[in-house]
């Protein structure tokens, strides 16, 4: 989750290996030629002048979207009764945004068609690839906005009137991914066309091809003939009704339908001389390789970027960021340092001592210290309304309380029950001054992300209570934050808390 420190040259790059050979790609193109409404002799007459493998770059932003939305949708019955359905939606899913990082012009490929998984690290120059254009920082911003929009769409799907909505975005990965494609340029009766095949799955992704001219001519004749009959009949009926006792409205509709059929049929079949699988020719002028344009940095940003060599503010020791870690201990003085931003900040931390019961029960087993962000929160609920609310034994976690968010790289389905347990219990932490032996898990979740997860933890807790939440207004104030290492004993595949 080191996204905040991603700068132009530090974006991770991966590529999918091509699995389709030239021969298979050629066969795929030939099969595609004979499908659909293309020229009937395309397979015979098309001459492939070039066929080559090319890697296209894509920006990919993966984020965990968390959202809570409450509200209602209303509909009116035939009897006039207004029925109101109340909803309480909770979203906690992974969202993936991709965008082509180069201009693919007429091929119109805008999004990556491959799912994450199976990529290999990309070494520049090792394959023929298009150069990614634009700025990584700008792309990351677009990704965030797009994912926010996806979360919004997902959470508001069923609700017409929203009474409560909170959404959080937890960035996971921002990377540049190269996807292989086979490109074939071919000519047919004086025209020049292109087809493009996915070199991983072997499917045609897009391209251009000539459309069956005979079919188009026939379709145009048919549509205009039908339109002519409709226009002629309706005009005649409007002038002289004769034996046809049809309402005037019908005659006018018939006339309008005839005109519409002619107006739509003529351009549709006249202009469609080329079948374009995807995209348009709008950006043809930029078909040359894109050039990477770094974002114009402000003076302040330049100053910050020049100090990329991070140093401990207390002892001056140079700090190096292991991949993905956001808070690391200083090798010189042992303080915890937040290196998420371009500056280094000291993070206060505590080390909890395992309680006596756990030490006795797990005698001879060294605990594993798992880092948690502890936020001292003052949460004042000003307004709450829930439909079908019933009282339960669940405690109220509003008011002054410490919230715990797991900062280690532990799956969320494991960490979330621990977080709720610690937040409800608020255990008394017996601090260890000189440190203890044991394994200390690295910290992968930064403070701002943990802060968002804290608020989501509260909201999720409220939505999981019986009844359908409709309104929840509150003031959420974080008074203090620090890292707390909590001992956990690992027993086979499960963890046993040491406090």
């Amino acid at each position: 989750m080191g996204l905040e420190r991603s700068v132009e040259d530090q974006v991770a790059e991966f590529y999918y290996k091509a699995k389709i050979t030239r021969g298979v790609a050629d066969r795929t193109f030939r099969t595609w030629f004979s499908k659909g409404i293309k020229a009937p002799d395309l397979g015979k007459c098309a001459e492939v002048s070039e066929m080559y493998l090319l890697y296209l770059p894509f920006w990919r932003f993966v984020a965990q979207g968390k959202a809570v939305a409450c509200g209602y949708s209303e509909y009116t019955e035939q009897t006039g009764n207004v029925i109101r359905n109340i909803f309480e939606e909770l979203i906690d899913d992974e969202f993936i945004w991709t965008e082509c990082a180069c201009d693919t012009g007429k091929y119109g490929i805008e999004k990556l068609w491959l799912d994450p998984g199976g990529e290999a690290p990309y070494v520049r120059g090792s394959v023929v690839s298009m150069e990614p254009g634009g700025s990584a920082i700008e792309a990351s911003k677009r990704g965030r906005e797009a994912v926010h929009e996806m979360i919004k769409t997902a959470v508001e799907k069923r609700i017409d009137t929203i009474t409560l909505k909170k959404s959080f975005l937890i960035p996971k990965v921002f990377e540049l991914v190269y996807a292989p494609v086979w490109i074939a340029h071919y000519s047919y009766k004086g025209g020049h066309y292109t087809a493009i095949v996915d070199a991983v799955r072997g499917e045609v992704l897009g391209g251009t091809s000539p459309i069956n001219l005979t079919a188009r001519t026939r379709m145009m004749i048919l549509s205009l003939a039908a339109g002519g009959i409709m226009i002629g009949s309706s005009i005649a009926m409007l002038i002289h009704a004769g034996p046809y006792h049809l309402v005037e409205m019908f005659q006018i509709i018939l006339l309008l339908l005839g005109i519409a059929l002619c107006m739509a049929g003529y351009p549709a079949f006249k202009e469609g001389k080329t079948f374009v699988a995807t995209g348009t020719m709008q950006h043809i002028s930029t078909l040359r390789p894109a050039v990477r344009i770094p974002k114009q940095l402000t003076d302040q940003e330049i100053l910050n970027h020049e100090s990329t060599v991070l140093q401990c503010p207390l002892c001056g020791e140079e700090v190096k960021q292991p991949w993905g870690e956001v808070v690391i201990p200083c090798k010189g003085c042992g303080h915890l340092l937040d290196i998420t931003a371009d500056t280094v900040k000291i993070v206060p931390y505590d080390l909890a001592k395992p309680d006596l019961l756990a030490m006795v029960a797990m005698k001879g087993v060294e605990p594993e210290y798992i880092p948690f962000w502890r936020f001292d929160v003052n949460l004042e609920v000003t307004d709450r309304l829930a439909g079908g609310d019933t009282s339960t034994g669940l405690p109220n976690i509003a008011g002054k309380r410490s919230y715990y968010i797991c900062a280690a790289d532990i799956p969320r389905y494991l960490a979330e029950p621990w977080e709720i347990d610690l937040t409800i219990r608020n255990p008394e932490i017996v601090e260890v001054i000189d440190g203890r032996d044991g394994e200390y898990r690295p910290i992968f979740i930064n403070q701002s992300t943990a802060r968002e997860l804290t608020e989501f933890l509260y909201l999720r807790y409220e939505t999981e209570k019986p009844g359908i939440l409709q309104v929840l207004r509150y003031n959420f104030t974080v008074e203090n934050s620090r890292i707390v290492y909590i001992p956990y004993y690992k027993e086979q595949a499960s963890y046993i808390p040491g406090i």
Partner: protein
Amino acid sequence: MAEIPGGIPAPLQCSSVIAPQIDEARARELAREWLESDTKPFIPEDKIRFGKAVMLYYPFWKYTREDGCLDVTVYRPACGTLLSGLQNIQREDNEIVPIPKDANILPATVQSSVYYPELHGIARAEDLIGIPLWLISYKVKKSIYMIEVDAASGKIYDEWHPIKEPVNWRKTALIACIPLMILSLIAVYFSPWLFLLVAGLLIFFLYQSEMLGVINLKRKEGKDGA
């Protein structure tokens, strides 16, 4: 500034370029001649509006190989490109000159070793050189197209271009629409029997268009009987 991570090779630089022999005016002339030629059925000249012309140097790997008793020179693009005609580019012996100061050279992004598997013979030399291309945009009706002119040899590379079709669409539309409109008008106004003629004509069109064949098509039944 951000450090360059280890393992990334130094940027590739062209050592020289092929001297352009054609200026912008000549390139435009060649493009126009090509579009007007009788060999390909193009849109008439008066509908073409030329736009910008840009000369770019595309980086190419020039491999010199000894294959049997012959010296073979092979060119392969040193950058990813979607333009057609550049993959198997053939060159005469063009004059090679140092890189001009104001040259627009695209960055080379492909290592020479990428193309080794497809090359034959004994390696004698390899160079990274820039080949100049004029990219000229032109508009026909509402669509924008581009033409590539080799600035050294004057050769035109086939790209997406407009095509004039052997059908007079206006005439076809009028012939299909007007007679049936008049016939149906007369049929309604004077005698509904004339509609038989209209229906007959429509069936004839349907028969000609092979649209009736659609009715006889049997749907394929799936394994589950769907």
